[in-house]
């Protein structure tokens, strides 16, 4: 019998990391009195040979992904970050070390700071408007409606299109006297017409609209899946107890949907921080006087396209640090209860 079978004889589930409580199936031991000695079959045993074999096994599982990832993602990124300490035009040898100067310059540049504000705006608007909208549609699709499957197909459609295509098409639609303006005129709402892509004051809202158009279907699908996990008996019970639909939604559905919502919010925020292709193509590299820059478009426009590779890398590092701090904080405090996906095990 393979050595792992010995484990089934009651050997302690050894955790190789002393900080962690013993794990069962990779999940922390449930407080419901699971025998800590009942072992997870692959969690290891006390025998040295078996430990080494286990380590090799883990390594074997992890290495294809790790090798690929380290060589083609982390190493280039680390090198890219390394450039941030230099003043470098991409052609000459890497000689002009400037330390933190690039970072100081970036944080002093009003256009960069504006780009941070723009991204923040998208994040807030997405959380406040896009996600509830997606949730509403998910609830809609959860009803028994004719053509529900078709609707589901259509709502997800924009997500499948490339950002570039979406940007090209919307740019045409939003032209002065373009399709949007024409439609508004046709229904008598001509007074609402704005310079959607030329007016620095509203261009970011236009961007938000198109971002919503592109991505709401993705979040809707997530919520739909979550809704479908909820047993109808719970809602029926609430109804019997006299709860209105709104109350039932608020006190029964929403809490059960919470893990899904938290994950969706996380992905939405990370996605907003990385927003690039759509904005680049639709606003022609950041809009008039940079009124639509995101951190990534700014990085490309003010950094790489000007032969300022050190500066561009510094901007990327700043954006990364912001994303990272957010991700850690979010994982720790918000997703804490959702073990799947925890970056830290504190309190898990």
């Amino acid at each position, binding site marked *: 019998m393979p050595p792992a079978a010995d484990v089934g004889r009651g050997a302690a589930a050894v955790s190789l990391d002393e900080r962690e409580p013993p794990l069962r199936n990779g999940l922390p031991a449930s407080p419901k009195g699971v025998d800590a000695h009942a072992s997870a079959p692959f969690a290891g045993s006390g025998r040295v040979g078996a430990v080494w074999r286990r380590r090799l096994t883990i390594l074997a599982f992890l290495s294809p992904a790790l090798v690929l990832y380290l060589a083609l993602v982390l190493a280039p990124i680390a090198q890219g970050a390394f450039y941030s300490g230099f003043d470098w035009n991409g052609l000459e040898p890497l000689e002009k070390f400037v330390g933190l100067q690039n970072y100081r310059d970036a944080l002093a540049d009003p256009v960069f700071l504006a780009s941070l504000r723009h991204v923040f705006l998208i994040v807030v608007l997405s959380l406040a408007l896009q996600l509830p909208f997606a949730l509403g549609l998910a609830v809609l699709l959860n009803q028994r409606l004719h053509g529900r499957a078709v609707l589901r197909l259509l709502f997800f459609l924009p997500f499948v299109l490339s950002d570039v295509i979406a940007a090209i098409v919307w740019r045409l639609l939003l032209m002065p006297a373009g399709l949007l303006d024409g439609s508004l005129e046709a229904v008598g709402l001509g007074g609402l017409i704005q310079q959607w892509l030329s007016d620095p004051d509203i261009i970011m809202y236009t961007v938000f609209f198109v971002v919503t158009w592109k991505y709401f279907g993705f979040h809707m699908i997530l919520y739909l899946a979550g809704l479908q996990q909820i047993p109808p008996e719970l809602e029926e019970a609430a109804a019997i107890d006299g709860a209105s639909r709104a109350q039932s939604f608020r006190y029964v559905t929403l809490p059960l949907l919470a893990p899904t919502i938290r994950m969706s919010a996380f992905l939405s925020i990370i996605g907003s921080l990385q927003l690039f292709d759509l904005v680049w193509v639709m606003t*022609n590299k950041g809009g008039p006087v940079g009124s639509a820059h995101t951190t990534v478009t700014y990085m490309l426009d003010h950094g790489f396209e000007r*032969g300022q590779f050190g500066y561009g890398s510094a901007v990327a590092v700043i954006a990364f640090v912001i994303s990272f701090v957010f991700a850690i904080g979010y994982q720790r405090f918000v997703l804490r209860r959702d073990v799947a996906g925890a970056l830290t095990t504190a309190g898990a």
Partner: protein
Amino acid sequence: MHFRKGWAAAMSLMLLAVACGGDDDSDTSADTESGSGSDEPVTIEWWHIQNNDPGLSMWEDVAHEFEADHPNVSIDITVYENEAFKTAIAPRLQAGDPPDLFQSWGGGGLVEQVDADLVQDISDDVAPWIDNLNPAAVELYQVDGVQYGIPFDLGMVGFWYNRDLFEQAGIDEPPTTWDELLDDVQTLKDAGITPIALGEGDQWPGMFWWAYLALRSGGPEPLQDAGEDGSFDSDAFVQAGERLQELVELEPFQDGWQAAVWDGAGGQAASMGTGGAAMMLMGQWAPGTMNANSPDGNGIGEALGWFPFPEVEGGDGEATDVFGGGNGFAVGKDAPPEAIEFLEYATSLDVANRWGELNSGILPVTAGSDESITDPTLQGVLEARADASYVQLYLDQAYDPELGAVINEAVEQLYAGQASGEEVAQTIADAAGG
């Protein structure tokens, strides 16, 4: 390529050793860099950006013809669209492995490449035939007097206008001074016609106005000096900004101009091409793009006219000072001598005439090729080019890419009413370290 050169060198030596009095008039003298005599197979890697017809086929034909004449040479063409080219070549340059011949606009970009040792000094090799080419164009591909590339096209920026619309507004002659231009703008507005088409979304169309005003206000010296010492806050530039502000305050542009691009549906070219605006300031490629953006492909047809940038009263510049630029090829540091021979062929009178006959946006620079261009408006451009007392390269190419971008942006702010002429000049001067 290095591999091939080493192999070629070895082969030449062996051939020499073995040859028993054969007909050997090939140049096997120590051409160490490339190490290949005229018998050894040579590949030339060539990157250009004429990615559509007629240019695409033209270059293909030229390459085939050269290959036919030089059987040991094979030319490997890679074609990119303009923007894609800039992105695609960056890693090659960064890795120190430039193509043998590649698109170049001269100016600041070339300077950077020279500093990074990416291009070859071809001054001696081209000396026998370089005088056949327009000297102003040739100079664009020199750095400190050393030749690193060869031009095949030089154009300039001027006004393209719709004769019919001018007539409609009662304007008989195109303006010859800046004040006349402002008056005409007002006249056109009063007649209900959009005076000027501008695609400020791309930034560089707006920069043309400012650059010309600077050139007219101060002549060539301030622009040259500023390139050296960053003195963009001198009078010429401040005045350029102030005069431009006068124009912008008249609100002469089409709807949505701030985000409009040069080309594509709804852009500047489309505005002109569909008769939506009376005039625009643009380079010699304008007619082609206008036509492409018009419903029947003919633009505004016979109604199209051209006039040079007007004088500015009290300015030091001449009306014959010209703002423009062109296309050429830089020679990569590892390029074989055959690549330079190819350039000679590509800019020969015969090829230049064929380019001219296409009446496309390419205006060849080979002496004697002017007659091959039959389009009357392009002829107007050619005359101005021939009379040019000075050619100033597009600012975002003349200076290094970063400064060019700062200029474009600062000027954009002026258009947006967010900066005054003086502030614009100051911003640029600060960025240039002046």
